């Protein structure tokens, strides 16, 4: 029987209430963020329905408890488990199952690898310099050492030098390549007359015009989308560049980051965490294909299909970070890169291979992608990162 609508009072006399609360707790444990207000909304919705219709109840709980389409899968699994027969034993089993699903995700081998890679303590011996030992003891570097660090290849850095480079990266500030928006703010020297403000000032003076107030367009930086290759050949650079992306994500709004090896992962939400270590820990749980092979064409197609329309609006700049060494020999790569180029305002390809002076695009992948990017730059040391940042700051004429 449907109880009368008791205006937001929780129907506590029903067995439904504790079950609903338990269900909300289950969803919360599965990672969907819900507050008490959401549970109240769901309870209110259920009082308006015929509880015999499973489909209606599912739709009602979905409408009140979910915020985005991505959560549907988790919700459906939880709903099926929980409402099959919400008796104690089954609920316990459902909880156990949801719990069991979480740690399993944690123990993926890729996760461990990225965590290790992030820790940055892998010994990297190729440049044995005599002064290696004292530098490790001395945290503050001398000016000349910092200069040397600027042009040193990331690949050749020791763990200590990597740490120093990360410190440098945190200091880099992206200049704001401002684009005009369609909003205005008051500005005494602005090019347009602000009628509303002028009139308000006029009436304040009893109808006397004293001054004409002016306004100008507000400007803001365009969205930035980074798509970064984390295959074996790129692992070292990706580690550094993730630090760069983390710094950028927390420095300006509208930055989206994606990683790909053999599949594409969106790590935007993870990188938004202020603490880089926690952010990378969360990324490592998400990305299964660290240091594996590369399927660039497939990853870009996936991006175009599922994310392009969602993140490339409003004149986005895309940073594509990959060495272009494709396991699939460049199949489908030209089309995918071309589509990507036409969907954004500017496509910048960052390639660490470009550090070699006589670099010739011989690989299939590179040949396929090269004609379709707006800009092609090296990214293998701090100096090249700096140049990139300057390029991002330039206004497009």
């Amino acid at each position, binding site marked *: 029987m449907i109880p009368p609508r008791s205006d937001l009072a929780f129907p506590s006399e029903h067995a439904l209430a504790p079950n609903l609360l338990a269900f909300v707790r289950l969803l919360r444990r599965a990672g969907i963020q819900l507050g008490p207000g959401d549970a109240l909304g769901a309870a209110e919705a259920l009082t*308006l329905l015929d509880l015999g*219709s499973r*489909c209606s109840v599912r739709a*009602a709980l979905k*409408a009140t408890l979910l915020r985005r389409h991505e959560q549907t899968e988790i919700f459906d699994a939880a709903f099926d488990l929980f409402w099959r027969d919400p008796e104690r034993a089954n609920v316990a089993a459902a909880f156990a199952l949801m719990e069991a699903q979480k740690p399993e995700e944690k123990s993926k081998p890729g996760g461990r690898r990225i965590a290790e890679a992030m820790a940055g303590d892998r010994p990297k011996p190729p440049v044995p310099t005599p002064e290696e030992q004292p530098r490790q003891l001395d945290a503050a570097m001398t000016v000349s050492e910092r200069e040397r660090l600027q042009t040193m290849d990331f690949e050749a850095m020791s763990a200590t030098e990597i740490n120093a480079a990360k410190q440098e990266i945190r200091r880099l500030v992206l200049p704001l390549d401002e684009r005009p928006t369609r909003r205005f703010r008051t500005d005494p020297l602005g090019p347009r007359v602000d009628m509303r403000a002028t009139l308000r000032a006029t*009436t304040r003076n009893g*109808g006397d015009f004293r001054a004409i107030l002016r306004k100008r367009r507000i400007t803001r930086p365009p969205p930035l989308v980074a798509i970064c290759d984390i295959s074996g050949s790129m692992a070292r650079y990706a580690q550094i560049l993730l630090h760069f992306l983390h710094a950028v994500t927390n420095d300006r709004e509208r930055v989206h980051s994606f990683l790909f090896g053999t599949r594409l992962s969106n790590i935007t939400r993870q990188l938004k965490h202020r603490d880089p270590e926690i952010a990378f820990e969360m990324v490592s749980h998400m990305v299964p294909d660290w240091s594996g092979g590369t399927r660039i064409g497939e990853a870009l197609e996936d991006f175009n299909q599922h994310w392009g*329309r969602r993140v490339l609006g409003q004149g986005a700049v895309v940073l594509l970070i990959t060495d272009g060494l494709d396991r699939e020999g460049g199949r489908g790569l030209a089309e995918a890169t071309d589509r990507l180029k036409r969907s954004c305002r500017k496509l910048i390809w960052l390639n660490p291979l470009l550090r070699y002076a006589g670099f010739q695009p011989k690989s299939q992948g590179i040949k396929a992608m090269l004609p379709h990017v707006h800009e092609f730059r090296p990214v293998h040391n701090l100096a090249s990162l700096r140049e990139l940042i300057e390029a991002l700051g330039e206004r497009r004429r």
Partner: protein
Amino acid sequence: MPADVSATAGMLAAGGYVADTALATTVHLALRMGRPLFLEGEPGTGKTEIAKVLAAQLPRKLVRLQCYDGLDLSAAAYEWNHARQLMAIRLAEVAGNVADIETSIYDRRYLESRPLLQALEGEPAVLLIDELDRADEPFEAFLLEVLADFQITVPELGTLKAATPPVVIITSNRTREVHDAIRRRCLYHWVDYPDAAREKAILALRAPTVSATLSAQVVAFVQKLREGDYFKLPGVAETIDWANALTALNARELEPASVDATLGVLLKYQDDIAKLKGEEAARLVAEARDSA
């Protein structure tokens, strides 16, 4: 207001909208709980249509706010009529009563209402905020007050509150993620492509001139097409257009030649058309004719 979910579904059907149980339930809840309805989904799945049908069936006036980048207060909610205000100042000067001019020129008479204010005032309304993802974040922040309390605060005038809260439908194509604060205030529903049975029912309602054979084949073809790997999959709107286009060409059944000639109605990207045209289209036509 409909009494239960099946009444809501019936009301939508009477307006020419075939809704599945999940959508009918969500619409019913939005009406009964007085919460805005946030509809997300691919273009052409009938999100906007729900608002139109609701307005026609309830019946209420439909107020539509089409969003775009830079949509601001003066285009969305209200604007002071500066010309009339200036004239009022002049008249007051001539008449010699400038003392209370400040209060008198910020009168409701000089406020021009735009969609959001129109939806709050006058007869009860259905407010359609279309493609919210196209607007920018500052506009979303402004919407929060409207959505939570159905009121608009004009600094010079005070708070204008709706006598009858409007039924609010918000749609988004996900070209940008709409902020959680907006989502929290709404009931959320993802509008998916319809299954074959529902799509046939939609065609029967929206394209009544199309023959039963053709419409069954068209639906089978489109359903197969949606399983494929295309940049932009056809929505229901495209299915309806395509069925009408084929009927206009006097097609009784799907033929590879007429399909090739009309692909532009179904797919809107050259890459997709090139991929489907010819062999692939012929294969899908054969499959559709077998299964329909």
